[in-house]
C-alpha cells in the first residue's frame, strides 16, 4: 500500500497546490495590481496649465485653422501645393481643441472647485486664481473656435457629453464677455499660481489680458451688436487693457524641445510650403515699413494664390523669396504674442473713430504703431515718427482713416492669421484680391469638420443648415 500513500499524497498536494496558487489571497483578490504604475489618477493643475500654455502659440502660427486663416488673410502664400490659397474646401476637426487644451482648462476649474480635490490643488496656487486663469484661457480658446467655425457647442461643452446642441455665435459672444468679467472679479491675493509660463502668476497682468480680450470681442461685434460692443469696449478699457509690451500675452519659448512654431516648421519639420505673401511685402514696401526686415527673411514676397505650375515656374526664376520671420534662422526662443499692446491701441483707435470712446484716435493709432514697431525690435523713435508722418500712414481725420487703421491692424496681427482674417472679414481692410483665376471668393468661415456629422449628427445638421449646408462661403453672425 505504500504506492497508494504516495498517490494520495501527490493528489492532495497537486490539487491543493493548484488551488492555492489561485486562492492564496482569495480567488477574486488581486490587491493593487490594477493601480497604474505609469501614471497618477490625480491631475496636477500646474502641469495642466503649463501644458496648455506650451501649445497655445499654435493659435498665433502653426495649427490647422491658423495656417488656413493665414492664407485667407494673405499673410502667407503656398509655395507648391496651392490648394488652400485657391480655396479648396478644408476639412478641419475641432476635437483636438476641445479634448486637448480646453478640457485641460476645464479640468483645472473642476479640480479647484470640487471640495474633494480643491485643498490638494491649492498647493499650486490659490484655488480662485487658478480657476480665474483657466476661465480666461478657456474663453480665449472659445473665441478662437467661434471666429473660425461660427456657431459652436459652448454652454454644454466639456461636460462629458458629445451629443449636444451648438450655441449661436450671438449668444456666445456676450457669454464670453460675461465669463471674462467674472473671472477677473474672482482673482484674490492668495498664493501665486504655479505652472504659469506666461505671466508667472501675476494677477494684474491676467486681468489686463482678460480686459484686452473683452475689448477685442466687443469691437468684433461692431456690426452685429454695436450697442453691447460699445458698452463693453469702454468698460474693458476703463478696467485696464494691455498698454505696454511688457504686459503682452506672450509665450517665451525656452528652446530645446519647446521651440517657436515657425522655427519648428522650417527646421524640425523641414517643410517650406508657406512663404510670406507678396500681399504683405508689397504693402510693407509701399509704406516703407521697417517691419519688412522681421516679418520675413527678405523683402520679396511669394505671389499669392498661383496655380501649382505657375508657383513652380515663379520659383525657378525667383529662387530667393521671403519665408516667415528668419526662415531657418528664426531663433527657436523667439516669443509669440497672443495679444499685444500695439494691437490694443490700434483697436482703441478704431473704437475712437467709431465714436465708441472719447479717446483720441490719432494718439491711439500712433501709440499702436509705435508699440508694434517696438515689439518687432524697431526702437528708433525718429524713424517711427517719420513712418507715422507719411501721408499713406498718418491719420487725417477723414473717412480714409478707416482703411489706414484697418491696414495697421492687419499688419499688427501678422502672422496670427485668424485675427487678420477676422479683421478683414469684419472691416474689409485691407482690400484683398482673391486668388487669380480660382473663380472663387475668399472663404468666410471654416466648415465644420467630418467628425461632427458622425458623432453629433442631429445637432450638426441643425447648425450646418444655418450656413448653407456647412459652406465656407456663408457668413457668421458678426460678419456683416
Amino acid at each position: 500500500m505504500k504506492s497508494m500513500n504516495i498517490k494520495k499524497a501527490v493528489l492532495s498536494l497537486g490539487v491543493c497546490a493548484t488551488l492555492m496558487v489561485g486562492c492564496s489571497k482569495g480567488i477574486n483578490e488581486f490587491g493593487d495590481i490594477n493601480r497604474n504604475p505609469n501614471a497618477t489618477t490625480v491631475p496636477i493643475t500646474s502641469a495642466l496649465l503649463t501644458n496648455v500654455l506650451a501649445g497655445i502659440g499654435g493659435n498665433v502660427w502653426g495649427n490647422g485653422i491658423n495656417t488656413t486663416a493665414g492664407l485667407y488673410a494673405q499673410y502667407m502664400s503656398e509655395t507648391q501645393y496651392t490648394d488652400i490659397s485657391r480655396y479648396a474646401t478644408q476639412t478641419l476637426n475641432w476635437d483636438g481643441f476641445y479634448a486637448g487644451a480646453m478640457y485641460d482648462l476645464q479640468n483645472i476649474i473642476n479640480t479647484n472647485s470640487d471640495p474633494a480635490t480643491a485643498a490638494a490643488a491649492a498647493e499650486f496656487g490659490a484655488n480662485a486664481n487658478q480657476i480665474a486663469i483657466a476661465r480666461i484661457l478657456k474663453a480665449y480658446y472659445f473665441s478662437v473656435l467661434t471666429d473660425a467655425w461660427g456657431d459652436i457647442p459652448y454652454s454644454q461643452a466639456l461636460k462629458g457629453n458629445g451629443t449636444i446642441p451648438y450655441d449661436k455665435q450671438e449668444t456666445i459672444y456676450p457669454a464670453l464677455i460675461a465669463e471674462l468679467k467674472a473671472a477677473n472679479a474672482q482673482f484674490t491675493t492668495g498664493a501665486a499660481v504655479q505652472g504659469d509660463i506666461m505671466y508667472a502668476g501675476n494677477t494684474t497682468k491676467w486681468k489686463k489680458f482678460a480686459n484686452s480680450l473683452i475689448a477685442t470681442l466687443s469691437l468684433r461685434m461692431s456690426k452685429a451688436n454695436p450697442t453691447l460692443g460699445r458698452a463693453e469696449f469702454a468698460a474693458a478699457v476703463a478696467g485696464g487693457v494691455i498698454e505696454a509690451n511688457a504686459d503682452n500675452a506672450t509665450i517665451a519659448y525656452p528652446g530645446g524641445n519647446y521651440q517657436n512654431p515657425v522655427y519648428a516648421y522650417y527646421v524640425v519639420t523641414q517643410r517650406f510650403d508657406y512663404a510670406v505673401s507678396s500681399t504683405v511685402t508689397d504693402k510693407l514696401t509701399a509704406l516703407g515699413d521697417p517691419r519688412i526686415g522681421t516679418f520675413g527673411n527678405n523683402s520679396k514676397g511669394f505671389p499669392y494664390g498661383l496655380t501649382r505650375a505657375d508657383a513652380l515656374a515663379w520659383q525657378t526664376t525667383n529662387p530667393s523669396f521671403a519665408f516667415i520671420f528668419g526662415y531657418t534662422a528664426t531663433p527657436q526662443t523667439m516669443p509669440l504674442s497672443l495679444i499685444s499692446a500695439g494691437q490694443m491701441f490700434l483697436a482703441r483707435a478704431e473704437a475712437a473713430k467709431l465714436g465708441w470712446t472719447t479717446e483720441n484716435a490719432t494718439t491711439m493709432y500712433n501709440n499702436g504703431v509705435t508699440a508694434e514697431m517696438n515689439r518687432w525690435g524697431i526702437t528708433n523713435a525718429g524713424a517711427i515718427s517719420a513712418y507715422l508722418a507719411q501721408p499713406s500712414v498718418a491719420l487725417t481725420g477723414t473717412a480714409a482713416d478707416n482703411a489706414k487703421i484697418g491696414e495697421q491692424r492687419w499688419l499688427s496681427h501678422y502672422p496670427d492669421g485668424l485675427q487678420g482674417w477676422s479683421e478683414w472679414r469684419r472691416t474689409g481692410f485691407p482690400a484683398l484680391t482673391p486668388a487669380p483665376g480660382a473663380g472663387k471668393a475668399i472663404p468666410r468661415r471654416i466648415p465644420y469638420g467630418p467628425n461632427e456629422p458622425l458623432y453629433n449628427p442631429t445637432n450638426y445638421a441643425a447648425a450646418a443648415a444655418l450656413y448653407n449646408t456647412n459652406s465656407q462661403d456663408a457668413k457668421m453672425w458678426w460678419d456683416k
Partner: protein
Amino acid sequence: MRKSLTLLAFALLCTIATFAQTVLVQGQVTDDRGPVPNATVQEKGTKNITRADELGKFSFKVKQGALVVVTAVGHAPFEFAATTGYQNVKIATLAGELEEVFVTSAFGVKKSQRTTPFSSQVINSDQLNVIRQPNLNNALAGKVAGVQFRGQSSAKLNDQGFLRIRGGGSLTDGDGAIYVVDGTITNSFDINPDDIADITVLKGANATALFGSRAGNGAIVVTTRKGKSGKGIGVEVNQSTTFDKAAFMPNYQNEYGGGDGGWLTFTYNPTMPAEWQALNGKRYRDFTDDASWGPKIDGSEYIPWYSFIPGHSRSGKTASFTPQPNNARDFWNTGVTANTNVSFSQSNGAGQSLRVSYTNQNIKGMLPNSKSLRHTLNTSFSMDLGSIFTIGANLNYTNQTINGDFNDGYSNFSSGNFSQWFHRDLDINILKELSSIRTPIGTIPSWNFRRNPGSWSAAAPQNSVWSGNYWYNPFTYFENIDLKQRRDRLYGDVNLTVKFSKNLKFKGSIRKDQFNRNVENITPNILQTSGSQTGLLAAYSTLNRINSEWNFEGILSYNNTFGDFVVAANLGANRLDIRQREVAMNTNNGLNVPGLYAIANSKTTPGISNVKSDQQANSLFAFGDVEFRKYLSLTWAIRNDWFSTLPKANNSLVSPSVGGAFVFSEFTKTALPWLNFGKAFASWGKKPKNLNPYALNLNYSVNPLLWGTNFLMGTPDGSPDANLRGALTTTWEAGLDLRFAKNKVRMNLTYYNENNRDEPLAVSVSGISGFTSQTINAAWVSRSGLELELGVDLMKKKDFNWTVNTTVAYLLDNKVRALAPGLTSYTLAGGSFGTRFARAFHFVGEQWGMLRGGGIKRNADGQPLITTNGFSGGLGWYQADATKDWGSVVPKLTGGLQNFFSYKNFNVGLTFDYQFGGRFFSLSEQWGTFSGLLDKTAGLNDKGNPIRDAVSAGGGVRVTGVDASDGRTPVDIYVDAYDYFHQFYYQQIAEPFVHKLSYAKLRELSIGYSIPTNKLGKFGKSIQGASIALTGRNLFFIFRDSKNFDPSEISGVQGEDGQMPGARTIGFNVKVSF
C-alpha cells in the same frame, strides 16, 4: 468555493480502488501515422476499461493472464495477453473506413471529431505545408472555412498578415485569433511551420470559451510534432530555397515625364559648376515637382538629373528622353529565402519519446538592404517514470533579427515613391548605378532637386540642385537608413501527469511565454543633410520590451465507462500572470556630433518612456462529455474567471457551454447504405471579454520633457466609465457532418450565430464632450454565416490518387446592432488623409465595417452631376457626395480549393483561394492619379487623340452626365486631363479608387517527386525517404477586381496607403530522412 472543491477532490480520491492478484499493463497505442489518442483498452469480457490518453498511452491493472482488447474507430481490434512491462500496441487501420480525426481543444485535450458539437477544422501538416511558407498565417490561407487571410507583401519581412475568422466579431479589429501551441498561448510570428503536426481551428464561443478571455476572435490550436518510432535513426533534413520577384505592379503610364509643366531651357552662367557649361541651351523638365505631368516622352535630347552632378562618367552629358516602363518593378530585388530544418525524432518503445529540431530561415528581402535571420529551436519530450508519473516538456525558442525599412504608409520611400510621387521617365538602372555618388558638398544627389538649376546659387548649393526636395535616390536611402529589430521568444511548458488509477489522473503544467524585443533605429546624418523637405533629421532610437507570461494550470481528469455510457469529466484551475515592461528612448531634434548614434548625443533633451503593466487572472473550470453507445454525445464546459483588470466588486465572469452530437448514420445503415457516416451537431456557449490593465481610471502621465523647470501633464482623451464591466459573447451553431461513397466524399456544413453584447470598448465621441473616446459597455455586434468543408477522393487507384478539399464560407449577416446611447457611428479605421477620402465605420443597423467617403453625386437616373471645373471655370468636375457608402470591408464569400494528385512517385499540390465582396480604398491609386503616374492619366480619348492634349486640340477626358444646377440638362464635354484627374483630391472624391476585395488566385503549387531510396544502392540503405519538389507561390490571379493593387494583400482594414507589390515566389525543396 474553496471548500466545495476540496470536498470534490476528496470524493474523487475515494473512488480509487485497489486490486489483488493483478498485473500492471502499460503501453502506448500507435498506428502508421503515430499515436492513437483515446483508444479503448479493455480487459476482455470484463468492465475493466481504460482509455488511452492524448499520446495513446495507457496503464491499468488486469488479472494475471487476462486478454486485453484495444479498440479504436477506423482500426481493427487488437488483442494481447497481459504481461508486465511496456506494450507497444500497433493497431492496423481499416481500408475504406473513416479515419478518425482528433480535435485539439483547450489544455491539449484530444477529442474525436465524431463527438465534437461545433465546427472544428483540422489541418494536418501535409495540407498545411503544401509548400513551405515563410510563416504560419500564409500557410493557412485558403485552407480553413470562414477564415479571411489578409496577407502582406513578401517585401514586408516584419509582417505576417492578419487572419479574420467569421467576419467582424468585435467592434475593434486589432485582435485576431489567438495562437495556442501545445496549450500555451503565444504569437503567430514565432511558430515554425516545420514543427507543426496539425492545427485545429476553433471559432465560436462554444469551442473557445475554455481558453479564456483572449480567444474572443477564435483560436488556432497547434500541436507540434512529437518523437515517434520509425525505421532509421530518425533524422530528417528539409531544405528549401525560394525566390520572390515583384509581380503584381500598378499599371503606369509611359508617355509623359516628370514635372508639372513643359520643357525648361538651361542657361549657363559662370557662377555655375564648370561641368554644366556643356549643357548650356539644352532643355530639361522640372526637377522640383514630384509628379509626372511633364513633357511627352518623345526620345528627344534632354538633360537628366545626374548630368548636373559632377564627378562621374555621366556628368554634363545629355540623354534621350525615353520610356522606362519597368523602372518601378526593377527597383525591387529578387528576394531569396533559404529555409533549413533538421530534426531528430525518436521513441524508445518504453514510454519515452523525444524530438529536437533546429530551423534556420535566412531571407534576403526584396527591399534593398533588408534581411531577416531566424533561428528556431524546438524540443519536446515525454517520459514515463514507472506507471504513475509521466513528465514532459515542449519548448520553443526563436531568435530573429530583422533589418530594413518596411514602411508601407503614405509617401513611403519605396512603393509610396513609385506609385504616388515619381517621375515616370527615370532610368532605375542609372539610379542604382549612381547610388553611391555624392555631390561636391557631400550630399546624396536626388532626381528631385530642391530647386531647378536655373536658381543655382554658388553660395548655397544645398538650396538648389544638390539636395533632394521631397525624395532621395531610393537606392541610396535604403543603403543608409538603418532600422533593426531583434526578437527573442521562449515559450512552452513542462508538465507532470500522475495516474492515480485507470480512471483518474492529474496533470499539472507550468507554461511560459517570454518575449523580448529590442529595436535600434538610426537615421544617419547624411539623410538629414541631403534632403530639404524629406522630413528626416539624424536620429537614434532604441526600445527594449519584455513581455512575460506565466500560466500555472492543474487539471484532474476522470474517465469511466458505465454500461453504454462513456464518461469523461475534468476539473481544473489556472493562474495567469502577465507582466510587460518597456523602456524606450529617442533623440530629439537631431544629433550634436554627426555620426554618433547614441541617446546622449541628442540635440535637445531625449525622449524617454517607461511603461509597466501587470495583470492577473484566476480561473476555475470544469468540462467533460458523456457518450452513449458511440452515437449520442453530450459535451459541456464551464469556466469562471476572475480578472485583475475588472472592477474589484465585479471581476468575475462565468462562461458556460454545452453541445450535443448525434451520429444518426448508426440507424440508417440499411436505409441509406451509401451514407458511411452522418452526424448532426449543435452547441451553445459564452466566452468572456476582459479589459486592458488600468482601463478603469483616467491616468495622467507626466511629460518628461520639461519647460524650464515646469513639468507638463495633459488630460487623457479617453474617458472611462466608472461602471465598466466584463462581458460575454454568445454563440450557437449547428451542422451536419456527412461521409458518402465509402468515405470518398466528406462534408461538413455549419451554421453559426454569434452575439457580442456589452463588450467594454472605447467608442469615438465628439471632442466637444472634452474627450474623443469613451469606454463603455454598450455595443452589440452580431454575425451569422454558413461554412462548408468538402473533401472528395476523385481517384483512388494504386498509382494514381486525386483528392480535392474545398472550403467555402458565406457571411450571412454581420450587423452592428448598437453602439453607445445616442451614437450611431463608430470609426473603425482610416488611413492617411482618412477624413479626406474614405474610412471604415460601424453604423448602427448596418453591416460591420462600412466603407464611407466622398462619392460622385448622381441624379435619380444615376447620371453624375457635373459642376464647375475648379481650375479653369466652366462645367467639368463631378459634384461630390460626401457620404457615399460602398459596403462592408469584409468579404461576403471566402474559400479555397486544394488539390492533391499523386502518380507513382510524383505528387502535385495545388491551392487556390478566393474571396468575393468587401471593399477597399486605394490611396496609392488616388495619388498615382493626382500625380499623373497611372496609365489612366494618359492614353487616347474616344476621338483617338491623347487625353493630355489641350481640349481645343481634340484632347481631354470625355465627361458625361447632367448639369448639377438643374440635375437634368445633359452634359457631354471634354475636360482637360490635368484638371480632371486633380478634381478627386480637391473635391475629396474617393469613388474612382474604391474597389472590391474580390479575387481568385493560384496561391500554392508544388510538384514533388519521392526518390525511391531502395534503388539508391548501398547509400540508399541509410536513407529512409527522400523527396524533391518544385514550388510556386502567388503564381497568378484567375481574376481580381482591382488591377493596380493586390486585393489579397491590402495593408489596412479600410484599404492601402502605400502598399508594396505582390510577389511571385518560385523555389525548390529537398527533404531527406535517415
